[in-house]
């Protein structure tokens, strides 16, 4: 199937809880594109929605999950990966996707992120990075670019940032990728590959907080913000990520790392079965 045929085959409305509309997101917010791209990937993969579990943190990013017509869990701030770990270990038959934000995932939830990467359970983690705490009114986050103005950095951010993908890779994630909301089909493909991957997948989605971040930093209308993603990103990142200490001006996109590592849930179940055979035999 070519791209056009697949696009026409997919109707996002089939996957949404339309009774909840209108949604809460501000006009132009990048999180909507991320949500749509996820559902597009789910559609292409033919995942049974009864078997899809979407576990969200707290934030504008975390609120997106409620609109998905699947099993959706809106947990506590920073902890969705820990909830998802229990759910996936108890229910390996479910496809588990986590939606988190840059604050949720890298600040309050940073410890859970690195351990989820290390454990390598078959969970797909989408981190919607808008470089800001959107929900609470635009405070600085661990990914806010240098000099940006936020409600808690009135004179411009002076803190260094995380490169979330490098962090995830170093912590052992067996699949790492990054994509911009400007490239919805590419984002869809990346999420699709991440879900298909057998193990922990980390996907950083470069999203835009148009209302707060955009306004405070005079980044223009939402269309201008999304277009600027073009100059900031380097496509096709595999093995190509710029070697810079903090968030570089230009970031690599695409699949950045992919390793074959044993999926933890299966390893645990196999080892348990051996134990049982040993005690019973």
């Amino acid at each position, binding site marked *: 199937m070519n791209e056009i045929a697949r696009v026409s085959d997919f109707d996002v409305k089939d996957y949404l809880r339309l009774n909840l509309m209108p949604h809460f997101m501000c006009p132009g917010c990048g999180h909507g594109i991320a949500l749509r791209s996820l559902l597009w990937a789910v559609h292409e993969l033919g995942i049974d929605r009864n078997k899809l579990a979407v576990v969200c943190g707290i934030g504008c990013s975390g609120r997106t999950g409620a609109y998905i017509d699947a099993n959706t869990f809106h947990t506590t701030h920073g902890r969705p990966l820990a909830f998802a770990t229990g759910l996936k270990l108890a229910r390996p038959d*479910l496809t588990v996707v986590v939606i988190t934000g840059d604050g949720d995932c890298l600040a309050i939830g940073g410890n859970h992120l690195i351990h989820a990467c290390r454990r390598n359970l078959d969970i797909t983690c989408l981190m919607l990075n808008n470089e800001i705490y959107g929900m609470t009114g635009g405070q600085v986050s661990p990914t806010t670019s240098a000099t940006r103005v936020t409600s808690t950095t009135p004179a411009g951010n002076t803190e260094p940032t995380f490169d979330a993908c490098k962090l995830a890779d170093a912590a052992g994630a067996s699949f790492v990728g990054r994509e911009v909301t400007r490239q919805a089909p590419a984002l869809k493909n990346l999420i699709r590959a991440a879900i298909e991957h057998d193990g922990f997948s980390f996907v950083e989605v470069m999203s835009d907080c148009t209302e707060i971040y955009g306004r405070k930093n005079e980044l223009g209308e939402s269309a201008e913000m999304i277009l600027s993603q073009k100059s900031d990103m380097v496509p096709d990142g595999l093995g190509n990520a710029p070697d810079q200490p903090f968030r570089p001006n230009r970031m690599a996109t695409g699949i950045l790392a992919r390793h074959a590592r044993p999926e933890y849930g299966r390893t645990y179940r196999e080892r348990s079965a051996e134990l049982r055979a040993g005690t019973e035999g």
Partner: protein
Amino acid sequence: MSSSLHSLQGNKACALAAIAAGCRFFAGYPITPSSEIAEQMSRDLPRVDGVFVQMEDEIASLAAVIGASLGGSKAMTATSGPGFSLMQENLGFAAMTEVPCVIINVMRGGPSTGMPTKPAQGDIMQARWGTHGDHPIIVVAPASVQEVYAETIRAFNLSERFRVPVVVLYDQIIAHLIETVELPPKGSIHTVERKWASGTEEGFKPYAETDDLVPVMARPGDGHRLHVTGLTHTEDGFPTQKPDLAAHALNRILDKIERNRAEIDKVEQIETKDAGTVIVAVGIAARAARRAVQMLRSEGIRAGLVRPVTLWPFPDEALRAATANARAVLVPEMNAGQLIHEVQRVVGGSAKVAGLNRVDGEPIPPAAIAQKVRELVADE
């Protein structure tokens, strides 16, 4: 098959009881004096096709437990004060979203790191009020290894029955005490299963009010595609800020416990019928109090004991009845005075209420309790 006698440590009895109650998921983080529970679960769960996972901290531990319970497993964690503090936010999440889970809190000296290897009863109030906001919770307080076994099973049953987090609260002494325990024969243990939706009901509402106020739970994958949120939610599970719906949602989860007290309450009473002095104590302090009652009775002093086994909700009625004719009430506890506030609230001015407190990491001996009762009697 008949029951069998075993020499068991408190923490081991707890783990065995959990498996017997149907627990198939444990997530935890090591902490003295609770670690033996995790160690035992790591050995036993794989053998019953369950899952043990050591998480990165206690916040993650309870989160994983709730995640597994949402998936359909009976699940628990075990910890002590510092870890229990870290669990409070997710404990509130479980109360709000009505996800069954069991939390073992083995009390040690506090606050902060305190005295890790010493017993205390300093978490009595935290177990009730630790998470923010008004919330339902059940706390049980066993006083022997035998009772740790029974109460851990009852904790699972109550949690599944009422879709509420249940805390099993005991202390370092009971955790590490080795006593002879009678284990019931396999198959004779009463276990309770959650009310599950079939997945095919028309217009299913996950938080619909039922006769007993406990909503029917839906398992992911069975057909109902539900939303679970810690935000205040309506019967269909989605957030609301409408005052009437918000009040109704909170009142229902609180009433769920209050209205079902008959199934939840459990109090042991010793010699309270004619008691002029009633001792109120829980856990290890109650064991010393029991001995003190024997000593006092042999001297002709009419002492009795009220021991809440279900500590929260607090047994107001039983205590009021037991102290109706008492002139004095003594509350021995291994903290600076927590239980005594509840006792004072219930007893009011009808009897003099005194405390006997110890915060040095040592148990209160029976002789100290007996002596305090003698003083109270002499004062009259």
